Protein backbone atom coordinates (compact mmCIF):
# COMPACT_ATOMS: atom_id res chain seq x y z
CA UNK A 1 0.00 0.00 0.00
CA UNK A 2 1.38 3.44 -0.91
CA UNK A 3 1.85 6.19 1.65
CA UNK A 4 -0.93 8.20 0.00
CA UNK A 5 -3.34 5.27 0.23
CA UNK A 6 -2.30 4.78 3.85
CA UNK A 7 -2.95 8.46 4.63
CA UNK A 8 -6.33 8.40 2.93
CA UNK A 9 -7.34 5.29 4.84
CA UNK A 10 -6.15 6.81 8.12
CA UNK A 11 -8.24 9.93 7.49
CA UNK A 12 -11.32 7.94 6.59
CA UNK A 13 -10.90 5.75 9.67
CA UNK A 14 -10.52 8.80 11.89
CA UNK A 15 -13.71 10.26 10.38
CA UNK A 16 -15.54 6.97 10.97
CA UNK A 17 -14.38 6.88 14.60
CA UNK A 18 -15.43 10.49 15.16
CA UNK A 19 -18.91 9.88 13.69
CA UNK A 20 -19.25 6.72 15.76
CA UNK A 21 -18.26 8.52 18.98
CA UNK A 22 -20.74 11.31 18.25
CA UNK A 23 -23.52 8.75 17.77
CA UNK A 24 -22.67 6.92 21.04
CA UNK A 25 -22.51 10.17 23.02
CA UNK A 26 -25.88 11.27 21.65
CA UNK A 27 -27.50 7.88 22.33
CA UNK A 28 -26.65 8.27 26.03
CA UNK A 29 -28.00 11.82 26.36
CA UNK A 30 -30.65 12.30 23.69
CA UNK A 31 -31.89 9.24 21.77
CA UNK A 32 -33.90 11.49 19.44
CA UNK A 33 -30.72 13.23 18.27
CA UNK A 34 -28.97 9.88 17.91
CA UNK A 35 -31.06 8.80 14.90
CA UNK A 36 -29.38 10.94 12.21
CA UNK A 37 -26.03 10.41 13.88
CA UNK A 38 -26.47 6.62 13.55
CA UNK A 39 -26.92 7.04 9.78
CA UNK A 40 -23.87 9.36 9.69
CA UNK A 41 -21.80 6.79 11.58
CA UNK A 42 -22.77 4.02 9.15
CA UNK A 43 -21.99 6.26 6.15
CA UNK A 44 -18.60 7.28 7.49
CA UNK A 45 -17.67 3.69 8.36
CA UNK A 46 -18.81 2.53 4.93
CA UNK A 47 -16.57 5.11 3.29
CA UNK A 48 -13.61 3.68 5.19
CA UNK A 49 -14.58 0.05 4.50
CA UNK A 50 -15.05 0.81 0.79
CA UNK A 51 -11.58 2.32 0.53
CA UNK A 52 -10.06 -0.56 2.54
CA UNK A 53 -11.80 -3.14 0.37
CA UNK A 54 -10.44 -1.44 -2.76
CA UNK A 55 -6.82 -1.70 -1.51
CA UNK A 56 -7.30 -5.41 -0.83
CA UNK A 57 -8.67 -6.26 -4.27
CA UNK A 58 -6.81 -8.66 -6.52
CA UNK A 59 -4.73 -11.75 -5.90
CA UNK A 60 -1.95 -11.06 -3.39
CA UNK A 61 1.05 -12.50 -5.24
CA UNK A 62 3.41 -12.04 -2.29
CA UNK A 63 1.16 -14.21 -0.11
CA UNK A 64 0.84 -16.81 -2.85
CA UNK A 65 4.63 -16.95 -3.30
CA UNK A 66 5.21 -17.31 0.46
CA UNK A 67 2.60 -20.09 0.71
CA UNK A 68 4.10 -21.93 -2.26
CA UNK A 69 7.55 -21.71 -0.68
CA UNK A 70 6.19 -22.98 2.64
CA UNK A 71 4.33 -25.86 0.98
CA UNK A 72 7.52 -26.90 -0.83
CA UNK A 73 9.54 -26.67 2.39
CA UNK A 74 6.94 -28.79 4.20
CA UNK A 75 7.08 -31.40 1.45
CA UNK A 76 10.89 -31.52 1.56
CA UNK A 77 10.87 -31.92 5.33
CA UNK A 78 8.30 -34.73 5.09
CA UNK A 79 10.43 -36.39 2.40
CA UNK A 80 13.54 -36.16 4.64
CA UNK A 81 11.67 -37.73 7.53
CA UNK A 82 10.24 -40.38 5.21
CA UNK A 83 13.72 -41.29 3.97
CA UNK A 84 15.11 -41.56 7.50
CA UNK A 85 12.22 -43.81 8.54
CA UNK A 86 12.56 -45.90 5.38
CA UNK A 87 16.22 -46.63 6.16
CA UNK A 88 15.46 -48.31 9.49
CA UNK A 89 12.32 -49.94 8.06
CA UNK A 90 14.31 -51.42 5.17
CA UNK A 91 16.94 -52.78 7.58
CA UNK A 92 14.18 -54.30 9.73
CA UNK A 93 12.66 -55.96 6.68
CA UNK A 94 16.02 -57.49 5.72
CA UNK A 95 16.52 -58.69 9.31
CA UNK A 96 13.07 -60.33 9.27
CA UNK A 97 13.78 -61.89 5.90
CA UNK A 98 17.02 -63.43 7.19
CA UNK A 99 15.15 -64.70 10.26
CA UNK A 100 12.63 -66.31 7.94
CA UNK A 101 15.34 -67.91 5.81
CA UNK A 102 17.10 -69.20 8.95
CA UNK A 103 13.84 -70.70 10.20
CA UNK A 104 13.23 -72.45 6.88
CA UNK A 105 16.82 -73.70 6.79
CA UNK A 106 16.52 -75.20 10.27
CA UNK A 107 13.25 -76.83 9.29
CA UNK A 108 14.80 -78.56 6.33
CA UNK A 109 18.16 -79.34 8.03
Amino acid at each position, binding site marked *: *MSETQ*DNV*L*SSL*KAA*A*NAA*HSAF*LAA*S*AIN*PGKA*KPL*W*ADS*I*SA*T*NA*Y*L*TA*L*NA*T*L*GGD*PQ*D*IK*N*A*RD*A*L*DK*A*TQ*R*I*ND*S*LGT*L*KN*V*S*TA*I*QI*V*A*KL*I*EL*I*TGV*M*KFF*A
Partner: protein
Amino acid sequence: MPLHPTSLYTAGRPSLAETREAVIRVVRCILVMALAAGCASKTLTSGAALSTAGKVASSAMKQAAISSPDAIQYLKDSDRLLSSLYGNAAQPQLKQRFALMDSIQKELSLRAAVLESLGETYSALLDLASYDASAAVTTSLTSLVASANAYLKAANSNPIPTDVSGSAPLVAGIVVNLVQQHDIRETSGEIATILDAVIQAMEKYRSSFIGFKEIVTSQSADSATILFGAGFYSVSPLLNYYGGPYGYVAVADADKRIALPQNQRFRAALTSIGAGRTQDRVALVSTAYDQSLSALRKLKIEHEALQNGGTLQLSDVFAAIGELQDTVAKFRTAFSGQTSAGK
Protein backbone atom coordinates in the same frame (compact mmCIF):
# COMPACT_ATOMS: atom_id res chain seq x y z
CA MET B 1 22.21 -77.87 0.66
CA PRO B 2 22.51 -74.89 2.97
CA LEU B 3 23.38 -71.55 1.39
CA HIS B 4 26.98 -70.50 1.98
CA PRO B 5 27.47 -66.75 2.53
CA THR B 6 30.45 -64.88 1.11
CA SER B 7 32.96 -64.26 3.88
CA LEU B 8 34.15 -60.76 4.57
CA TYR B 9 37.74 -61.96 4.56
CA THR B 10 38.81 -63.83 1.44
CA ALA B 11 41.71 -65.72 3.11
CA GLY B 12 40.34 -67.20 6.33
CA ARG B 13 40.29 -65.38 9.74
CA PRO B 14 42.52 -62.20 10.16
CA SER B 15 45.57 -62.18 12.46
CA LEU B 16 45.32 -60.71 15.98
CA ALA B 17 47.42 -57.69 14.95
CA GLU B 18 45.25 -57.01 11.89
CA THR B 19 42.12 -57.23 13.99
CA ARG B 20 43.55 -54.89 16.65
CA GLU B 21 44.59 -52.38 13.95
CA ALA B 22 41.12 -52.47 12.41
CA VAL B 23 39.49 -51.94 15.79
CA ILE B 24 41.75 -48.91 16.54
CA ARG B 25 40.91 -47.36 13.14
CA VAL B 26 37.21 -47.88 13.66
CA VAL B 27 37.30 -46.47 17.21
CA ARG B 28 39.14 -43.32 16.01
CA CYS B 29 36.55 -42.86 13.30
CA ILE B 30 33.72 -43.37 15.76
CA LEU B 31 35.20 -40.81 18.19
CA VAL B 32 35.36 -38.12 15.51
CA MET B 33 31.84 -38.84 14.33
CA ALA B 34 30.57 -39.05 17.90
CA LEU B 35 31.88 -35.54 18.56
CA ALA B 36 30.06 -34.29 15.47
CA ALA B 37 26.95 -36.19 16.47
CA GLY B 38 27.12 -34.66 19.94
CA CYS B 39 26.80 -31.25 18.31
CA ALA B 40 24.07 -32.66 16.09
CA SER B 41 21.93 -33.70 19.05
CA LYS B 42 21.87 -29.99 20.08
CA THR B 43 20.66 -29.26 16.54
CA LEU B 44 17.79 -31.67 16.94
CA THR B 45 16.84 -30.24 20.35
CA SER B 46 17.07 -26.66 19.07
CA GLY B 47 15.16 -27.58 15.93
CA ALA B 48 12.37 -29.10 18.03
CA ALA B 49 12.27 -26.08 20.36
CA LEU B 50 12.17 -23.59 17.46
CA SER B 51 9.45 -25.60 15.72
CA THR B 52 7.28 -25.59 18.85
CA ALA B 53 7.81 -21.84 19.25
CA GLY B 54 7.05 -21.26 15.57
CA LYS B 55 3.81 -23.24 15.71
CA VAL B 56 2.61 -21.23 18.71
CA ALA B 57 3.67 -17.91 17.16
CA SER B 58 1.94 -18.52 13.82
CA SER B 59 -1.29 -19.60 15.54
CA ALA B 60 -1.24 -16.62 17.94
CA MET B 61 -0.52 -14.20 15.08
CA LYS B 62 -3.51 -15.46 13.13
CA GLN B 63 -5.73 -14.88 16.18
CA ALA B 64 -4.20 -11.41 16.59
CA ALA B 65 -4.70 -10.45 12.93
CA ILE B 66 -8.16 -11.75 12.11
CA SER B 67 -11.56 -11.23 13.70
CA SER B 68 -13.31 -14.55 14.24
CA PRO B 69 -16.49 -15.37 12.24
CA ASP B 70 -18.37 -15.13 15.57
CA ALA B 71 -17.10 -11.57 16.05
CA ILE B 72 -18.29 -10.52 12.58
CA GLN B 73 -21.68 -12.12 13.17
CA TYR B 74 -21.96 -10.40 16.56
CA LEU B 75 -21.29 -7.01 14.96
CA LYS B 76 -23.94 -7.63 12.28
CA ASP B 77 -26.46 -8.60 14.95
CA SER B 78 -25.59 -5.47 16.92
CA ASP B 79 -26.07 -3.37 13.77
CA ARG B 80 -29.49 -4.91 13.16
CA LEU B 81 -30.60 -4.05 16.69
CA LEU B 82 -29.38 -0.46 16.39
CA SER B 83 -30.95 -0.11 12.95
CA SER B 84 -34.32 -1.05 14.45
CA LEU B 85 -33.82 1.42 17.30
CA TYR B 86 -32.54 4.37 15.29
CA GLY B 87 -34.59 4.18 12.13
CA ASN B 88 -34.47 2.22 8.95
CA ALA B 89 -33.16 5.12 6.87
CA ALA B 90 -29.77 3.51 6.94
CA GLN B 91 -30.99 0.14 5.57
CA PRO B 92 -29.30 0.37 2.12
CA GLN B 93 -26.14 1.52 3.82
CA LEU B 94 -26.42 -1.35 6.28
CA LYS B 95 -26.69 -3.82 3.40
CA GLN B 96 -23.60 -2.26 1.82
CA ARG B 97 -21.81 -2.41 5.18
CA PHE B 98 -22.45 -6.15 5.58
CA ALA B 99 -21.27 -6.85 2.03
CA LEU B 100 -18.08 -4.83 2.61
CA MET B 101 -17.40 -6.60 5.91
CA ASP B 102 -17.77 -10.01 4.27
CA SER B 103 -15.49 -9.03 1.38
CA ILE B 104 -12.79 -7.56 3.62
CA GLN B 105 -12.92 -10.54 6.00
CA LYS B 106 -12.51 -12.88 3.03
CA GLU B 107 -9.52 -10.92 1.65
CA LEU B 108 -7.83 -10.70 5.05
CA SER B 109 -8.41 -14.43 5.69
CA LEU B 110 -6.73 -15.15 2.34
CA ARG B 111 -3.68 -13.24 3.50
CA ALA B 112 -3.73 -14.74 7.01
CA ALA B 113 -3.72 -18.23 5.43
CA VAL B 114 0.05 -17.85 5.02
CA LEU B 115 0.24 -18.18 8.81
CA GLU B 116 -1.56 -21.54 8.60
CA SER B 117 0.98 -22.70 6.00
CA LEU B 118 3.77 -21.53 8.30
CA GLY B 119 2.24 -23.55 11.15
CA GLU B 120 2.17 -26.65 8.93
CA THR B 121 5.83 -26.23 8.02
CA TYR B 122 6.71 -25.97 11.69
CA SER B 123 4.68 -29.10 12.46
CA ALA B 124 6.64 -31.01 9.83
CA LEU B 125 9.95 -29.69 11.18
CA LEU B 126 8.94 -30.68 14.70
CA ASP B 127 8.24 -34.23 13.48
CA LEU B 128 11.66 -34.35 11.81
CA ALA B 129 13.55 -32.92 14.80
CA SER B 130 11.70 -35.15 17.28
CA TYR B 131 12.36 -38.39 15.40
CA ASP B 132 15.23 -40.38 16.93
CA ALA B 133 16.69 -41.60 13.63
CA SER B 134 19.93 -42.67 15.28
CA ALA B 135 18.21 -44.96 17.78
CA ALA B 136 15.91 -46.40 15.10
CA VAL B 137 18.79 -47.27 12.78
CA THR B 138 21.03 -48.56 15.57
CA THR B 139 18.24 -50.82 16.85
CA SER B 140 17.42 -52.06 13.35
CA LEU B 141 21.06 -52.83 12.54
CA THR B 142 21.59 -54.59 15.86
CA SER B 143 18.60 -56.81 14.98
CA LEU B 144 20.03 -57.38 11.52
CA VAL B 145 23.42 -58.41 12.93
CA ALA B 146 21.70 -60.79 15.38
CA SER B 147 19.60 -62.30 12.55
CA ALA B 148 22.66 -62.60 10.33
CA ASN B 149 24.68 -64.31 13.06
CA ALA B 150 21.80 -66.70 13.75
CA TYR B 151 21.72 -67.56 10.05
CA LEU B 152 25.51 -67.99 9.90
CA LYS B 153 25.39 -70.30 12.94
CA ALA B 154 22.63 -72.36 11.34
CA ALA B 155 24.77 -72.53 8.20
CA ASN B 156 27.79 -73.67 10.28
CA SER B 157 29.73 -70.57 9.26
CA ASN B 158 31.77 -68.08 11.30
CA PRO B 159 29.74 -65.22 12.78
CA ILE B 160 30.28 -61.59 11.73
CA PRO B 161 33.53 -60.38 13.42
CA THR B 162 32.81 -58.58 16.70
CA ASP B 163 34.73 -55.45 15.71
CA VAL B 164 32.25 -55.08 12.84
CA SER B 165 29.09 -56.33 14.54
CA GLY B 166 29.73 -54.10 17.57
CA SER B 167 30.65 -50.89 15.77
CA ALA B 168 28.53 -51.03 12.60
CA PRO B 169 25.17 -50.20 14.27
CA LEU B 170 26.81 -47.41 16.29
CA VAL B 171 28.49 -45.90 13.24
CA ALA B 172 25.34 -46.17 11.15
CA GLY B 173 23.38 -44.44 13.92
CA ILE B 174 25.90 -41.61 14.01
CA VAL B 175 25.86 -41.23 10.23
CA VAL B 176 22.06 -41.08 10.11
CA ASN B 177 22.10 -38.54 12.93
CA LEU B 178 24.52 -36.36 10.98
CA VAL B 179 22.29 -36.58 7.90
CA GLN B 180 19.27 -35.62 10.02
CA GLN B 181 20.99 -32.61 11.55
CA HIS B 182 22.16 -31.50 8.10
CA ASP B 183 18.54 -31.64 6.87
CA ILE B 184 17.36 -29.63 9.88
CA ARG B 185 20.02 -26.97 9.40
CA GLU B 186 19.29 -26.63 5.71
CA THR B 187 15.56 -26.42 6.35
CA SER B 188 16.18 -23.84 9.06
CA GLY B 189 17.97 -21.65 6.54
CA GLU B 190 15.11 -22.07 4.11
CA ILE B 191 12.55 -21.13 6.75
CA ALA B 192 14.57 -18.02 7.67
CA THR B 193 14.33 -16.84 4.04
CA ILE B 194 10.60 -17.57 3.82
CA LEU B 195 10.00 -15.86 7.19
CA ASP B 196 11.53 -12.74 5.68
CA ALA B 197 8.87 -12.80 2.97
CA VAL B 198 6.09 -13.51 5.47
CA ILE B 199 7.21 -10.65 7.72
CA GLN B 200 7.34 -8.26 4.78
CA ALA B 201 3.84 -9.28 3.70
CA MET B 202 2.40 -8.95 7.21
CA GLU B 203 4.07 -5.52 7.51
CA LYS B 204 2.56 -4.49 4.19
CA TYR B 205 -0.97 -5.50 5.26
CA ARG B 206 -0.58 -4.28 8.85
CA SER B 207 -2.85 -1.23 8.56
CA SER B 208 -5.52 -3.32 6.78
CA PHE B 209 -5.57 -6.07 9.40
CA ILE B 210 -5.45 -3.65 12.33
CA GLY B 211 -7.85 -1.09 10.83
CA PHE B 212 -10.61 -3.61 10.19
CA LYS B 213 -10.24 -5.42 13.49
CA GLU B 214 -10.27 -2.10 15.39
CA ILE B 215 -13.55 -1.10 13.70
CA VAL B 216 -15.10 -4.50 14.46
CA THR B 217 -13.91 -4.33 18.08
CA SER B 218 -14.97 -0.74 18.80
CA GLN B 219 -18.38 -0.90 17.12
CA SER B 220 -19.33 -4.35 18.45
CA ALA B 221 -19.83 -2.89 21.92
CA ASP B 222 -22.53 -0.41 20.78
CA SER B 223 -25.63 -2.54 21.45
CA ALA B 224 -24.45 -3.63 24.89
CA THR B 225 -23.52 -0.05 25.79
CA ILE B 226 -26.87 1.35 24.70
CA LEU B 227 -28.88 -1.44 26.36
CA PHE B 228 -26.95 -0.90 29.59
CA GLY B 229 -27.59 2.82 29.42
CA ALA B 230 -31.30 2.11 28.94
CA GLY B 231 -31.40 0.04 32.15
CA PHE B 232 -31.71 -3.45 30.68
CA TYR B 233 -28.69 -4.84 32.51
CA SER B 234 -28.11 -5.09 36.21
CA VAL B 235 -25.51 -2.72 37.63
CA SER B 236 -24.72 -5.14 40.46
CA PRO B 237 -21.79 -6.94 38.76
CA LEU B 238 -20.01 -3.62 38.16
CA LEU B 239 -20.81 -2.37 41.66
CA ASN B 240 -19.48 -5.62 43.11
CA TYR B 241 -16.37 -5.29 40.94
CA TYR B 242 -15.61 -1.95 42.63
CA GLY B 243 -16.69 -2.98 46.10
CA GLY B 244 -15.52 -6.60 46.17
CA PRO B 245 -11.90 -5.91 47.22
CA TYR B 246 -13.20 -3.93 50.21
CA GLY B 247 -15.87 -6.43 51.24
CA TYR B 248 -18.78 -4.41 49.84
CA VAL B 249 -21.74 -6.10 48.16
CA ALA B 250 -24.30 -4.34 45.96
CA VAL B 251 -27.69 -3.90 47.64
CA ALA B 252 -30.59 -5.98 46.34
CA ASP B 253 -32.41 -2.94 44.89
CA ALA B 254 -29.31 -1.42 43.26
CA ASP B 255 -31.01 -1.48 39.84
CA LYS B 256 -34.02 0.45 41.18
CA ARG B 257 -31.78 2.99 42.89
CA ILE B 258 -29.71 3.64 39.78
CA ALA B 259 -32.92 4.34 37.80
CA LEU B 260 -33.88 7.24 40.09
CA PRO B 261 -33.53 10.69 38.45
CA GLN B 262 -31.09 11.90 41.10
CA ASN B 263 -28.79 8.95 40.27
CA GLN B 264 -28.61 9.51 36.51
CA ARG B 265 -25.01 10.62 36.75
CA PHE B 266 -24.10 7.33 38.41
CA ARG B 267 -25.64 5.37 35.57
CA ALA B 268 -23.83 7.54 33.04
CA ALA B 269 -20.55 7.00 34.93
CA LEU B 270 -21.01 3.21 35.01
CA THR B 271 -21.93 3.22 31.30
CA SER B 272 -18.65 4.99 30.53
CA ILE B 273 -16.72 2.06 32.03
CA GLY B 274 -17.81 -0.11 29.11
CA ALA B 275 -16.61 2.51 26.64
CA GLY B 276 -13.27 2.74 28.40
CA ARG B 277 -12.79 -1.03 28.38
CA THR B 278 -13.69 -1.15 24.70
CA GLN B 279 -10.94 1.38 23.99
CA ASP B 280 -8.50 -0.78 25.99
CA ARG B 281 -9.51 -3.73 23.86
CA VAL B 282 -9.07 -1.72 20.66
CA ALA B 283 -5.55 -0.77 21.77
CA LEU B 284 -4.71 -4.47 22.24
CA VAL B 285 -5.33 -5.08 18.50
CA SER B 286 -2.24 -3.21 17.33
CA THR B 287 -0.22 -4.38 20.35
CA ALA B 288 -0.91 -8.03 19.54
CA TYR B 289 -0.15 -7.54 15.86
CA ASP B 290 3.17 -5.81 16.51
CA GLN B 291 4.14 -8.42 19.11
CA SER B 292 3.44 -11.08 16.45
CA LEU B 293 5.78 -9.37 14.01
CA SER B 294 8.42 -9.10 16.73
CA ALA B 295 8.11 -12.84 17.48
CA LEU B 296 8.50 -13.72 13.78
CA ARG B 297 11.60 -11.51 13.50
CA LYS B 298 13.16 -13.23 16.53
CA LEU B 299 12.32 -16.65 15.07
CA LYS B 300 14.06 -15.67 11.84
CA ILE B 301 17.24 -14.75 13.72
CA GLU B 302 17.25 -18.09 15.57
CA HIS B 303 16.71 -20.04 12.34
CA GLU B 304 19.73 -18.31 10.84
CA ALA B 305 21.76 -19.16 13.96
CA LEU B 306 20.68 -22.80 13.73
CA GLN B 307 21.62 -22.93 10.05
CA ASN B 308 25.08 -21.53 10.78
CA GLY B 309 25.68 -23.66 13.86
CA GLY B 310 25.67 -20.60 16.12
CA THR B 311 24.32 -20.25 19.66
CA LEU B 312 20.57 -19.88 19.92
CA GLN B 313 18.83 -17.39 22.24
CA LEU B 314 15.65 -19.38 22.62
CA SER B 315 14.70 -17.53 25.82
CA ASP B 316 14.21 -14.34 23.74
CA VAL B 317 11.86 -16.15 21.36
CA PHE B 318 9.89 -17.77 24.18
CA ALA B 319 9.59 -14.43 26.02
CA ALA B 320 8.26 -12.71 22.87
CA ILE B 321 5.75 -15.48 22.24
CA GLY B 322 4.70 -15.50 25.90
CA GLU B 323 3.95 -11.76 25.67
CA LEU B 324 1.94 -12.28 22.50
CA GLN B 325 -0.09 -15.11 24.04
CA ASP B 326 -0.81 -12.93 27.09
CA THR B 327 -2.06 -10.08 24.89
CA VAL B 328 -4.25 -12.39 22.80
CA ALA B 329 -5.69 -13.86 26.03
CA LYS B 330 -6.31 -10.35 27.43
CA PHE B 331 -8.15 -9.38 24.25
CA ARG B 332 -10.41 -12.40 24.52
CA THR B 333 -11.29 -11.68 28.16
CA ALA B 334 -11.12 -7.88 28.27
CA PHE B 335 -14.28 -7.71 30.29
CA SER B 336 -14.73 -9.71 33.46
CA GLY B 337 -17.55 -12.14 32.84
CA GLN B 338 -17.50 -11.51 29.09
CA THR B 339 -19.21 -14.17 26.99
CA SER B 340 -17.51 -15.93 24.08
CA ALA B 341 -19.26 -13.72 21.51
CA GLY B 342 -17.57 -10.60 20.28
CA LYS B 343 -14.02 -12.00 20.43
